[in-house]
């Protein structure tokens, strides 16, 4: 405690961690237990305290080359070795190779008589000897509290324990001390008073007949840690803690797009399919074709040469292969080529965590690029909704971490409630496709639409989803005033439309003919009028000519008569001149 004072400014940088190697625990604690300090692990009976501490030692010796001392107060060396050998830990071998020292400390209270003062120097000597004999870096004291039952003088014991933890720190070993969970304090004998750097609580409780173990880092002085309760499993390879929420959301992302195996569906997703490493949710009621789309997706991935892992919780692999063959999807060659692997299990086979751990193991072993879970809802029904969601989160986090594209199908139970019930899970998903049954016109038809697709342009339209002998196809559904029409209604609507188009065409042709007819009629009229006009013009010309002739004739006649009347005129004129100018006037004219 006193040591922490001066080095507080950047504790994370200054606090060295000791990796446990236990799956998930290092993630929660941000790298492991505090190096060179004691950590208290407490929990009730059967929580896995001993296992956690033994795994800490074994992994330390095997993976990190840090030898360890196990001081066992409850189980003998032989018992411990046998107990953990089922988890693949070869304690005996490690002891032989001087990587681990097991010291079984046992005092039978009835065989020991106490007389006068004493201390626990013997324990220190033994521990010191064990540590020095192999150069141990890690120490486990399991379960130190057993001493409270063996030694009658609690005052001495407490003083000595305080000294022990101080001594362990001075020795510089990373220690794990296990203790029984107390009724109203962390440990039955208040050990947390002495070990205050890191406290891990283990818990085993039964919920809805399903027992789940939980781990919580109650305290971690000077370091960031996940404070939630995390389920953990004791599997065939030791302990695995499953962080529900990983501490950071910092997956690498890919811009690569991968096809779904259904070209029209790709087209709905901005033309190029899903992002690699994204999580896809496919919801639909029973029989809407979820498995079929999944199988298509799997086949498309396998054709690209990618490994695909298909978790099936409803059908056996052979059944899926047979069923998909009926729509022209040949999955068997993919399985034979080792590109496609099925993992089928009944959901009720074991609890949620066990399923998750099995899936993790399968994924780690097969290293797929695409993972399909069909359906995820079967698994989620096993636990409470928050546990189920937690599990999906963990699975998605895990898959995204490895840039694995994941497709989850989800069985919903009809109605529009489905969108609400899936809302919790959907927030974890990057893309969400909805498959629906449309009932009407005496038939059921499947439709498909993209509810969301993060980071890509996607179609907002409802498409009809057809399943035939040749696979699946997505076609435009008819969307009109009367709603979405599918199946035969869509076909009827199509022919109706065709008839309407034909009628329109005929009408247009008729109109065109009419116009043509009118045009010719008018032209005819025009030519009639023109000929009338021309006839009239001819007449007019004739009349005009006649008029001209008659005028000429009249003039001629006038002239003639004038000429005839000349003398008289001259005479008349002469008389007029003479009257004016004299008698010679008549000569000038």
């Amino acid at each position, binding site marked *: 405690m006193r040591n922490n004072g001066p080095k507080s400014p950047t504790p994370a940088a200054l606090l060295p961690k000791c990796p446990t190697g236990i799956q998930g625990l290092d993630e929660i604690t941000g790298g492991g237990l505090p190096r060179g300090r004691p950590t208290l692990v407490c929990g009730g009976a059967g929580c896995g305290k001993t296992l956690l501490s033994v795994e800490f030692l074994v992994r330390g010796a095997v993976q990190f080359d840090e030898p360890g001392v196990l001081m066992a107060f409850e189980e003998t060396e032989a018992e411990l070795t046998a107990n953990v050998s089922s988890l693949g830990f070869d304690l005996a071998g490690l002891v032989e190779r001087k990587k681990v020292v097991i*010291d079984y*400390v*046992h*005092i039978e209270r009835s*065989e*020991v*008589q*106490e*007389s*006068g*003062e*004493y*201390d*626990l*120097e*013997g*324990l220190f*000597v*033994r521990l*010191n*000897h064990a540590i020095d004999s192999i150069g141990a870096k890690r120490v486990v004291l399991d379960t130190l509290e057993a*001493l409270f039952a*063996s*030694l009658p003088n609690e005052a001495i014991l407490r003083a000595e324990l305080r000294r022990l933890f101080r001594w362990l720190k001075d020795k510089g070993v990373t220690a794990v001390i296990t203790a029984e969970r107390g009724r109203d304090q962390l440990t039955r004998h208040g050990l947390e008073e002495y070990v205050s750097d890191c406290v891990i609580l283990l818990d085993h409780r039964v919920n809805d007949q399903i027992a789940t173990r939980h781990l919580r880092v109650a305290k971690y002085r000077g370091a960031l840690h996940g404070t939630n309760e995390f389920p953990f499993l004791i599997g065939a390879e030791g302990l695995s803690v499953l962080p529900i929420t990983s501490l950071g959301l910092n997956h690498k992302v890919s811009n690569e797009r991968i096809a779904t195996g259904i070209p029209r569906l790709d087209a709905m997703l901005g033309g190029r399919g899903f992002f690699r490493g994204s999580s896809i949710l496919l919801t639909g009621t029973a029989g809407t074709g979820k498995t079929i789309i999944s199988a298509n997706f799997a086949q498309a991935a396998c054709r690209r040469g990618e490994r695909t892992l298909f978790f099936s919780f409803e059908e056996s692999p052979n059944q899926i292969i047979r069923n998909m063959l009926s729509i022209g999807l040949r999955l068997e060659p993919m399985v034979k080529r080792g590109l496609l692997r099925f993992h089928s299990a009944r959901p009720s086979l074991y609890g949620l965590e066990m399923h998750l751990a099995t899936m993790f193991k399968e994924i780690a072993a097969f290293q797929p690029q695409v993972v399909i879970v069909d359906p995820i809802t079967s698994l989620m029904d096993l636990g409470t909704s928050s546990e189920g969601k937690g599990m999906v989160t963990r699975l998605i986090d895990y898959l995204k971490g490895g840039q694995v594209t994941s497709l989850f199908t989800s069985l919903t139970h009809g109605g529009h409630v489905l969108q609400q019930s899936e809302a919790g899970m959907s927030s974890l998903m990057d893309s969400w496709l909805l498959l629906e049954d449309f009932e009407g016109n005496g038939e059921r038809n499947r439709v498909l639409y993209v509810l969301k697709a993060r980071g890509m342009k996607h179609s907002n339209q409802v498409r009809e989803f057809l399943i035939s002998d040749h696979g699946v196809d997505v076609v435009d559904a008819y969307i009109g005033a009367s709603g979405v029409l599918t199946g035969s209604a869509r076909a009827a609507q199509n022919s109706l439309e065709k008839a309407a188009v034909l009628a329109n065409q005929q009408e247009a042709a008729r109109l065109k003919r009419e116009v043509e007819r009118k045009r010719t009629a008018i032209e005819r009229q025009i030519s009639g009028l023109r000929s009338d006009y021309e006839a009239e013009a001819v007449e007019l010309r004739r009349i005009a000519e006649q008029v001209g002739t008659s005028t000429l004739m009249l003039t001629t006649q006038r002239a003639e008569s004038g000429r005839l009347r000349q003398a008289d005129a001259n005479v008349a004129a002469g008389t007029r001149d003479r009257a004016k100018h004299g008698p010679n006037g008549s000569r000038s004219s």
Partner: protein
Amino acid sequence: MKTKTIERRVATPARQPSELWQLRLYVTDSTPKSLTAFANLKKICESQLKGSYRITVIDLLKQPQLAKGDQILAIPTVVRKLPKPVRTIIGNLSDTERVLVGLDLRPTG
């Protein structure tokens, strides 16, 4: 009271003196506790088992590997290796009564 009991013990020894008692005293270095324990043990043995006992003092700082065999935790500890069964007493042996009970040198009751 105590003294009286011891005297009575001396009068009627519980064990045959012919048996050789083997006692081990585990200590760490020559701490006051260790020295007190050795003195007390010696005194009790002299009075009870004169001539038929052997005390081996083991310093765990010099021979730490020996601690495991007799399951030594507390210091000082006396282990009666012989006669069987093995008996263990922890502490500086200042409480003689308890030592006698522990070593089975007086009948219970």
